[in-house]
């Protein structure tokens, strides 16, 4: 069985683990659950229309981000269906006051559409006793969904959106690690790119900036991160500073630059259209950022398997001296992996800025460690010379699915950290087992 384990290509095992995780969380989150805000709004409007009651209706929502989305969705759906639905929002006490006014007003509403949250308030559950004037009003609550919360399209999209920045950054990290290096600066570069892009846009039109300006500013920010990578690479090759130290220093420097540029604040003067990349979806509901991520992985994979540079990266990571004596331009190869890592981190930063429609120097904290974790869970050896870009994507997805699944199943965030650490250890152990057989685990080489 030892040999059977070893013969498996690493990707198959990783995909298997990912599949098992998805299956587990699908099962664990199976059951009835509340609809998401948008779906809840749609279902309420449909119910109200189906009831065909003359007159207006009141939609009731509480406070909070989810309730905001619900209120917006109700208004949009009502406008689309040309229905007279007003929205009342607030704490139960405020809502009661407002409803009492409306009940005794000129045209009392005939229906109440409660958000999932509001439907649970005693005020609405017992509406005929709480507000006697509403004795005849019809109350609509969102239907509950049945199925797996994990497998819901919104949730899956959510998983992808959460991992996209780390996954893109991890492509460059994979190349660096295959070349037997490490890049600790990527988290700071994410922040630097986000802040720098936002700062440039603010200087060049702010919220009124055009598409070309936005693209140009983002490109400059990404290029700047490539420049930081270039600098790290030169420090490592020309002055023989160990990669860990060189990029640790750049991590500090880049973070400091981001704070200086942003003056310690978040930068918000960005047009709404800037979120096209991070929140939009141009093709068949697939988020643009996910398409971008897939593109980056495709390019990375082709680079590593089909290009001379890729071949050289493997050679340098496997044995730099042997590579040099075989005519590989070792220094140039090393510099280029750090440039590429800087560029992917910069791209990740731009995606993050687009997702959040702002740039802040606090972005990307600890992302370098998540990127390294994705690479390692993907089976790339930290000692260099071996690895696979596509497996890093699987590694990133494994991490994302575990985090999301634990959120859905109500695991505390502290416990989540422990599980994540265990997953990283487990992945490395499985990889050792695959590479060297059972003997490698007993400690004697």
């Amino acid at each position, binding site marked *: 069985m030892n040999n059977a384990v070893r013969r498996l290509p690493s990707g198959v095992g990783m995909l298997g683990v990912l599949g098992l995780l998805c299956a587990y969380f699908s099962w664990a989150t199976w059951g009835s659950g509340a609809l998401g805000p948008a779906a809840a709004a749609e279902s309420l409007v449909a119910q109200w229309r189906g009831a065909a009651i003359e007159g207006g209706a009141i939609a009731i929502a509480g406070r909070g981000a989810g309730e905001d989305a619900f209120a917006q969705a109700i208004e949009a759906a009502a406008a689309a269906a040309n229905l007279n639905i007003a929205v009342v929002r607030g704490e139960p006490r405020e809502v009661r006051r407002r409803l009492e006014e409306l009940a005794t007003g000129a045209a009392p509403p005939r229906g109440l559409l409660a958000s999932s949250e509001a439907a649970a308030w005693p005020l609405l559950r017992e509406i005929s006793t709480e507000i006697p004037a509403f004795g005849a009003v019809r109350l609509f609550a969102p239907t509950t969904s049945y199925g797996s919360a994990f497998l819901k399209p919104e949730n899956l999209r959510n998983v992808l959106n959460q991992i996209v920045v780390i996954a893109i950054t991890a492509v460059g990290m994979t190349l660096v690690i295959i070349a037997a290096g490490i890049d600790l600066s990527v988290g700071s570069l994410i922040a630097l790119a986000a802040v720098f892009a936002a700062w440039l846009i603010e200087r060049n039109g702010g919220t009124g900036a055009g598409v070309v300006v936005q693209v140009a500013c983002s490109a400059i920010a990404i290029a700047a991160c490539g420049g930081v990578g270039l600098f790290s690479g030169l420090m490592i090759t020309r002055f023989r500073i160990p990669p860990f130290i060189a990029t640790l220093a750049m991590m500090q420097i880049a973070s400091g630059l981001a704070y200086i540029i942003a003056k310690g604040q978040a930068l918000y003067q960005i047009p709404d259209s800037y979120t096209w990349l991070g929140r939009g979806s141009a093709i068949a509901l697939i988020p643009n950022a996910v398409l971008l991520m897939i593109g980056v992985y495709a390019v990375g994979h082709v680079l590593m398997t089909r290009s001379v540079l890729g071949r050289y990266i*493997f*050679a340098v990571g496997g044995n730099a001296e*042997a590579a040099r*004596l*075989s*005519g590989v331009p070792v220094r140039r190869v090393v510099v280029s992996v750090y440039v590429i890592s800087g560029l992917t981190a910069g791209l990740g930063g731009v995606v993050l800025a687009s997702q959040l429609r702002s740039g802040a120097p606090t972005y990307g904290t600890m992302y370098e460690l998540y990127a390294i974790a994705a690479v390692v869970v993907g089976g790339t050896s930290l000692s260099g*010379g071996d690895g696979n870009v596509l497996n890093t994507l699987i590694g990133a997805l494994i991490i994302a699915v575990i985090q999301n699944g634990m959120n859905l199943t109500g695991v505390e965030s502290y416990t989540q950290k422990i599980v994540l650490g265990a997953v990283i250890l487990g992945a490395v152990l499985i990889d050792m087992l695959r590479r060297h057989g059972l003997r490698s685990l007993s400690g004697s080489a």
Partner: protein
Amino acid sequence: MSQPSSESSLRPRSGDASDDVERGDVLSMRGISKRFPGVQALRDGRLELQRGEVHALLGENGAGKSTLIKILAGAQPPDEGEIRLDGAVRRFHSPLEAKQAGIAIIYQEFNLIPALRVFENIFLGRDRAALGWLRTGDERRAARELMGRLGVSIDVDRRCDSLRVAEQQLVEIAKALADRARIIVMDEPTASLSEREVQTLFQIIREMRGQGVSIVYVSHRLDEVYAICDRATVMRDGAHILTRRIGELPREKLITAMVGRPLDAEFPPRDGAAGDVLLDVRGLERRGVVGPVSLRLRRGEILALTGLVGAGRTEFVRLLFGADRATGGELHLAGRRIFPNDPRAAIRAGVCLLTEDRKQQGLLLGRSVQENFALPSVASWSSGGWLDLRREPAAFRSRREELRIAVSGPEQPAGLLSGGNQQKLVLAKWVERDAQVFVFDEPTRGVDVGARLEIYQLMRSLTRAGKGVLMVSSELPEVLGMSDRILVMRGGRVVGEVDDVARARQEDLLALAVGGVESR
């Protein structure tokens, strides 16, 4: 922990029965077998060691010598078989247990901690301590005593990374003696030693033998085996073939036993005359390290570069190849001046180096044989930075047949090849790159007796094709058997030249290498 008194420090720890069995077997390993996934490393390992003898353990790579030694060292458990020490059955579960039983192994790669001093290394793991504090004074004194017994003068306060290879080996031996080992296994002990250092080592080995220590001597160098060993055990394909007194074992018979078939000749015949000058080296030097060296290499010629370890041969060929920067001198290849400032430039100009240490410098052990083969050529095959994925396997297939490289397939990792096949693979790289000057640094180090002839034949086929071969070698029989002309280096310079190789003798070369007679 008792401090060895000055008299006893060289004497082995005596077992309970050793007084009765004065010349009896101190060690007997019988019917040892060991299976690793996919390979039966040992089928019938046998080794009988008498007290106070030097016993050669011979066989080609893969014959099972290393596995047998690892089992003796307690690093691997045997599947079957019996180990008796002084007649009592023993089973070692860890290297520590074997060490405590008086068995010391000196591997080719030494186990010294570079940053620690000599005496600290000698007593590492058996530190003399009082209440957790090291008694460095005691250790220093004891270490000095050991060095004195060995007849060498190494400052015990030097850091081990400042020692030459030969000195490091002596520290390893001192370490074994400090453990009061009575069985010392030496794995290729002379691989990195000069002739003179080899003589010193032999002196020490003889002295230890006189003290009753038994030595297992693993080597590919048959001359040394005949010079120092009392008996020899030959292994082949994981099984014991024979054990004889060395005097009753003529060389041909020994080789036949190792290889399993008689060898026609150790070296291929010379052929053809040398052509015009291919490589002209004028005053090449790296200040403070080597040179200035001037030499001319002709087409169709094998020029040997010999000398003691430390004579600057490897340093010199690294300059030729641009692995290190030269500080002065000129290089002309086929009449055109070349500037090998780095290996890339040298390769482009047509100079290639087959390094002494293939595992560290020649090959990417974890990558496939085909990738290793293609590495110097991929850039020239590529278009726009993209690999030519059709040309690569085709080129590999044809060179693999041409050089008869035994691989299971193009995807086999290079680290799994035997020494001979690794050397062929490195050679294939450079043949494919169409190099003109082939510099071999110790071409047959780590290569089996059986595979050596093949390497030699390939070197000859290079000269037949009009290439020039520069061969750095410490093995005088190889130098005399293969070269058309010999240069001897000492202290970073060429101190002698031998044109008439057929009449040259090892003693003459040695005299040149050691110094005294200058013929230039």
